[in-house]
């Protein structure tokens, strides 16, 4: 599909002026969350699949090609399989794929 883009009326400089502070805050909040986890268990590496996914997403922000960061992260956090579940295992999603029913070769 060829997107029919609406050009952003704001210049890059205007976007930075308008949105830098709130995004600076978001980065600091994520860093604080990871520090908090480290303080909770300073001697034990955390192997929670959601936190691993979060760390992977942070790495993707810097390594993804321009203008595809969000989609790359969304795909990384998604269940990549195609086979339906045979039975309901739980009622809701948790935010990252735990690899429990991987059907890929």
């Amino acid at each position, binding site marked *: *599909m060829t*997107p*029919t*883009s*609406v*050009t*952003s*009326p*704001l210049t890059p400089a205007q976007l930075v002026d*308008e*949105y830098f502070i709130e995004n600076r805050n978001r980065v600091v909040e994520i860093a604080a969350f990871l520090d908090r986890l480290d303080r909770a268990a300073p001697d034990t590496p955390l192997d929670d699949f959601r936190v691993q996914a979060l760390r992977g997403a942070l790495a993707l922000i810097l390594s993804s090609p321009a203008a595809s960061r*969000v*989609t790359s992260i*969304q*795909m990384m*956090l*998604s*269940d*990549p*399989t*195609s086979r*339906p*579940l*045979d*039975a*309901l*295992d*739980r*009622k*809701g*999603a*948790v*935010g*990252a*794929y735990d690899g429990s029913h991987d059907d890929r070769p």
Partner: protein
Amino acid sequence: MRYIDHHAHMASRTTDDYAQMALTGCVALTEPAFWAGWDRSTADGFDDYFRQLMEFEPRRAAQYGVQHYTWLGMNPKESDNREISLEVLARLPQYLGHPNVLGIGEIGLNRVTRNEIATCTDQIELAARYEQMVLIHTPHLEDKLKGTRITLDVLLAHPALPAGRVLVDHAEEHTIEMILEHGFWAGLTLYPQTKVSAARAVDMIEYYGPERILVAGACDWGPSEPIAVPKFIAEMRRRRHTDELIQRVVFDNPVQFLSQSPKFKVPAATRAAASARI
């Protein structure tokens, strides 16, 4: 600015929320049947809920000058229960002629189980048989990609249901393109934590353009905002988009989609957004 919220679970909101929506320009909303946060034990429980959506909520909305429409169906969260689902589906046709019922919804998948797919398929066949419009729920978070792909496969296997009469809701960056490229409408639902923020919704409008894209608050009993659409409008203005483009997304597009039902009446331009009760 006048707007239409195509996805608002007002049964879980207070009357004050109707007032806030009216004060911020909401002139019409549509309310899809959904999960109450707990599973109903009988099909009779769904009958009572459907009656609330057809009779009680329109009266509450009318007090504030807001038109209320609804979509009825077996929601994805309870659709794994095939016994109750089949009983609800057998009762559904009797309600489809009600004046404020626009079609079948919100239906679709939750954890993407075989039973959920069977119930979703049954409802899509029902919609095609009764020539109903459809509002599709796509799954949350890590289940969205897989669930959207399978739901689209089911829809495409039923060409009797025209794609232009189907709204695939809760689209995000990794699913919107596959929805639009098959001719369906894509809904962006604005949530404070999950799904789409106002800023990302504006990004998707900028990337794909406004055609066949709707935005909604999808307020429910969880963390959500009844005035999410006016906040989206504010974000569009913050990006310096024109009022013409904003109106297309929040009013003209929903009118275009919803007017495919002869029951939907376009809100009059001069109608006061709020009544004297506010």
